[in-house]
């Protein structure tokens, strides 16, 4: 495993594992679970959300500068890590907002316990298998060139493009660790847990699915089918956004989340 580098604003130790964390804003608690491209692309959305909520945005174990315990190999493991985090910070009435891989983690948390949760936002969520065994629900990002990946994952590929050669070492390291950690957690079964689908009925808190409608890594049809498995969940699209709507449309994304948090 690559060595962790110090990147984000703060640090938390949960059951002996040190992670980077951003804590910003005041108000009702919001746990932001970033996508497979790491925490850096999420900072604009985090800042917007922090205008009306107390945002806690950890960097998942294995990503960015966060440590990775040897035993942490699956999204299921990550969900227990975050349940521990919620206990340790003694948070209540939390809105969990997850994007893609982060949404998968959020669902795995919520099917175990919603005791500390009040709401769930699933943006361009991975985590289940909708199609049949010969249908690729989720594009194989490990079999695409950088350019092809940017074109399917973004409405505007330039938003996602990074000049790796000119990045400072810490950011280049974070990008490499994100890729490695995504492989660690999402390799096979690819970007999903075959058991999760049958457990989604356990999520009985208000749930919003947000979907960047230009996502060609995971389709809107998949998102709607996933949404239909969560009791009472609502589905909304975000325009001019692809697989990472928090990165492409941070203001709109944050606005939708904050409105949802206000709903009775």
């Amino acid at each position, binding site marked *: 495993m690559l060595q962790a580098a110090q990147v984000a604003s703060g640090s938390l130790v949960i059951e002996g594992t040190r992670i980077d964390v951003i804590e910003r804003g005041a108000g009702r608690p919001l746990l932001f679970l970033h996508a497979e491209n790491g925490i850096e692309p999420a900072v604009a959305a985090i800042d917007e959300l922090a205008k009306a909520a107390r945002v806690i945005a950890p960097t998942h174990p294995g990503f960015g500068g966060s440590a990775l315990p040897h035993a942490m190999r699956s999204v299921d493991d990550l969900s227990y890590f975050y349940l521990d985090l919620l206990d340790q910070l003694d948070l209540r009435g939390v809105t969990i907002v997850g994007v893609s891989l982060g949404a998968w983690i959020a669902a795995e948390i919520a099917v175990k316990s919603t005791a500390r949760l009040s709401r769930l936002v699933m943006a361009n969520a991975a985590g289940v298998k909708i199609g049949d065994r010969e249908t690729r629900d989720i594009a194989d990002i490990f079999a695409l060139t950088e350019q092809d990946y940017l074109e399917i994952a973004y409405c505007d590929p330039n938003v996602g493009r990074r000049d790796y050669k000119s990045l400072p070492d810490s950011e280049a390291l974070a990008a490499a660790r994100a890729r490695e950690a995504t492989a*660690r957690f999402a390799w096979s079964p690819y970007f999903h847990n075959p058991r999760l689908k049958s457990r989604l009925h356990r999520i009985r808190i208000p749930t919003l699915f947000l979907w960047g409608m230009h996502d060609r890594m995971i389709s809107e049809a998949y998102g709607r089918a996933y949404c239909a498995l969560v009791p009472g969940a609502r589905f909304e699209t975000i325009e001019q956004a692809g697989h990472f709507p928090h990165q492409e449309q941070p203001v709109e994304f944050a606005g939708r989340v904050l409105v949802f948090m206000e709903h009775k």
Partner: protein
Amino acid sequence: MAAEWGATMRVYQFSEQPYYPTWNDHSGSLRVILPNRKCDPPVAADLFHRYYDEYQICDEIGLDIMLNEHHQSATCMSSAVVIGLAVLARATKKARLLVLGYPIGHRPDPLRVAEELSTIDVISRGRLDMGFIKGIPYEIAASNRNPVELMERFWEAHDFIIKAMTTHDENFNWEGEYFHYRQVNVWPRVLQEPHPPIWSTTGSTSQARALGERGYVMATLGTGYGTRKIFDAYRKSYVAKFANAPAADRFAYSGPCRGPQRRGGSAQARPSDRGLSAHQRDRLPTVPQSSRLSAG
């Protein structure tokens, strides 16, 4: 592939068993994405039989034989090296049979690996040289094993296979990180004691150190002027562990060889006339002039 055994240099003939008819007819890559529509099975069959005829010639003239494994590729049709080993275990009598290598971290079932290699060792009457390798990054799809964990799987499979080959008196269990078995008892019992010699490949000094510690035969492939450094790293950790210098038979080196050009005309490789039927000579295509076997 050359390795020194006692005072004699052993030479292992190595062909990747390529499907060269499509080398000038591909859409950008000979590997991974080249659809198998480009493989004409009757031609592939003729090529396989030519390659195995050539191996039999090696056996007759005193060369040893090395097989390898690649996947999804026109550079190497041997996608399941155990098949070739099985053919040669029966079809040859004297040659050492080196597999370099068996990608043990990729195989879902190292017990099956132990059974296959034990059987080959027995049928060949103790001529198996057992090479364990990591595999190459762009062939992950062939097994879909998680690339991040590959080395850990490799070492657990390695430990398990050795235990399976060297346990003779009682069934054992294995509940590791990656593999679970409850009643392991491998038949037939492997012939060479304590197990066939273990080889591995490397291009790095860190892996050379790991191999030196274990006294395995270290094979370097085309490492050229960088070889000295790798051999020295091996020697250093070997001496630290075993207190004496490694014998020459711990070191192997592979470099490509080109056959002689035919006189009067462009260089074209033709299958050797020895050992081939007239039917095969007529059907086999010549190697395109501009093609080159890609590295690795």
